[in-house]
């Protein structure tokens, strides 16, 4: 088992005829994901390495039964592409695109909530259920099947922690990159809840970073609602206050956004927090053998 992405996932890739879209659609397919369709307006009838291209997501769904969309279109057109997917029968949308205007995402997010559908990202590496399927741009060789769920705001840091877990022989049920933008479709809480309900996830690693108050909110949620144990990691203890750190999101907003405050909030709710990726992997190992 796994969450969000599995053997029943039928993927339509929006922006499939672009360089990145074509590259990752092909790679996702090679990993075993059912990549059933692509969309590029005006290019219906073409194909990308055997994946048929359609003019609209609706057409792709009608012809192929796609239930998940991955968005690879450039930032200026990405909000429209996400809205198109949300207007179609597709249930889950994974938006990889980086650089979408925040106000676009505010509108898309608010609309998405009223549809009851799921959006992961934007500006995220995607979702992988190791050994089963991957939707996104994650380097698949880093991951191995297992029973630890991982959710992260950061891409490469996710790979780092997965690597540390692998060194200890620990694999993942699903790894979810939720993205670091100011407005993302799914929060830590949304994903933690899904992992908690997944019978094949024994423990969850939550990888946060400075800025915002999502980790603090997650701490409350974990204490109030979850039975699956969580191990936390927060990046940015050495980050200077008030400076923007690459992710538009990583701006410290008052004391609540510091790494120390986040660690404290999590530990106050019984979540063990490692100070380095290596320590996190150790804590996971320890928790699993308790």
């Amino acid at each position, binding site marked *: 088992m796994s969450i969000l992405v599995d053997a029943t996932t039928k993927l339509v890739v929006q922006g499939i005829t672009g360089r990145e879209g074509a590259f990752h659609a092909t790679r996702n397919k090679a990993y075993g994901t059912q990549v059933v369709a692509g969309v590029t307006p005006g290019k219906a009838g073409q194909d990308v390495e055997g994946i048929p291209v359609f003019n609209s997501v609706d057409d792709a769904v009608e012809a192929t039964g796609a239930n998940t969309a991955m968005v690879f279109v450039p*930032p*200026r057109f990405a909000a429209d592409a996400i809205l198109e997917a949300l207007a179609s029968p597709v249930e889950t949308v994974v938006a990889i695109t*980086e*650089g*979408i*205007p*925040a*106000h*676009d995402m*505010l*509108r898309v*997010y*608010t*609309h998405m909530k009223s549809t009851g559908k799921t959006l992961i990202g934007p500006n995220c*590496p995607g979702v992988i259920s190791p050994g089963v399927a991957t939707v996104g*741009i*994650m*380097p698949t*060789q*880093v991951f191995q099947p297992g029973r630890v769920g991982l959710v*992260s*705001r*950061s*891409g*490469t*840091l*996710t*790979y*780092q922690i997965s*690597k540390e877990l692998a060194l200890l022989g620990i694999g993942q049920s699903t790894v979810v990159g939720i993205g*670091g933008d*100011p*407005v993302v479709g799914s929060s830590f809480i949304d994903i933690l809840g899904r992992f908690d309900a997944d019978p094949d996830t024994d423990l969850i690693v939550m*990888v946060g*970073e*400075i*800025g*915002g*108050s*999502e980790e603090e*909110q997650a701490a409350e949620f974990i204490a109030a609602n979850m039975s699956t144990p969580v191990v936390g990691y927060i*990046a*940015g*203890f*050495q*980050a*200077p206050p008030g*400076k*923007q*750190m*690459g*992710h*538009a*999101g*990583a701006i410290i907003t008052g004391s609540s956004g510091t*790494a120390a405050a986040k660690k404290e909030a999590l530990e106050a709710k019984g979540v063990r927090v490692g*100070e*380095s*990726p*290596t320590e996190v992997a150790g804590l996971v190992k320890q928790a699993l053998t308790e």
Partner: protein
Amino acid sequence: MDLLEYQGKRLLASRGIEIPPGQVAETPEQAREAAAAIGGKVVVKAQVQIGGRGKAGGIKLAENPDEAFEHATAILGMDIRGHIVKSVWIEAASAIKKEYYASVTFDRAARKPLVMLSAVGGMDIEEVAASQPGALVRRHIDPLIGFQAHDARWLVYHAGIDEEAIKGTMAVLHTLYDAFVSLDAMLVEINPLVLTEDGRVIALDAKVTIDGNAVYRRPELADVGDILPDDPQERMAKERGVTYVKLDGDVGILGNGAGLVMSTLDVVALAGGRPANFLDAGGGSKADEVVTALEVLLSDEKVKVLLINIFGGITRCDEVAEGLLTALGKLGATLPIVVRLDGTNEDEGRAIIRDRAPSNVVVEGTMLSAAAKAVELAKGQA
């Protein structure tokens, strides 16, 4: 993208919020002329992208054009918390009856715009928020419905805005929200929003931050332009589109992806070292970006050791290795460089370094060992 006070004010004024008449000056002489043109008492205000100007002496009242000249002379060139003052804004002094605070910003936690209003404005709004939480009222807005009349009413009544300023303040709030949306802003803030002795509601300051991802669709920002930092490395990084922040240590750090770079800083600190910077070459770093990033780092004389921490995903380790060789060939750096390469094409990347890199470059197998090695080398250099 942070705008200067006068840029923000002009954008608000073009939407209907009243501001005092004013002019920009880049020399004391221009300041004198501006003061003469405006007439009466004027305020000379340093234009820098940072708060706390008043306390730093960057805002002065001038009784006449000659005083404006003197103040401008003192303020221009001043260093306010690392920002050099390159221009001043000369504006007519206002007869202030009351100072309020008004802003629209982005609440990440709620994923909604947040409008805040206080009848207790002025410099230390953060202190007001901390010490008198009831004095700063907050209202979330549904971005699809937008800011409504009832939102404005709720804010002014709950903030306790003076009766005579209610209508004007409600109008300002509507305009402020409109500016927030129509400028693709992350923040629009007026502090203080002033009730004048003659009953007008006007903006005496403006802080506007624009979403850099949306500047392309806001033609009215075309001539605003981004202001380059004064620090040479930060300036170089910004010009080349690399995310860089200078810190005060001696271990230069380069990684791909903000989270991994922050984590690298932490691991260096845990190993007893002091990071010299944050530098994210991007999640999808190519060889060119590595070269650019290295140029930024190597131009900083404080950097004694370089730690390169790459986890390949989209980024291919062999391309990073090639980029490193190219940069070293071009720049001829001799300081110790610790490289850790993992992920896509890691073996190829490591082999390139091992086989072709100069002897000051060492490869480490893990992030932890690489950090330890870099710290050890930095201490050896001290």
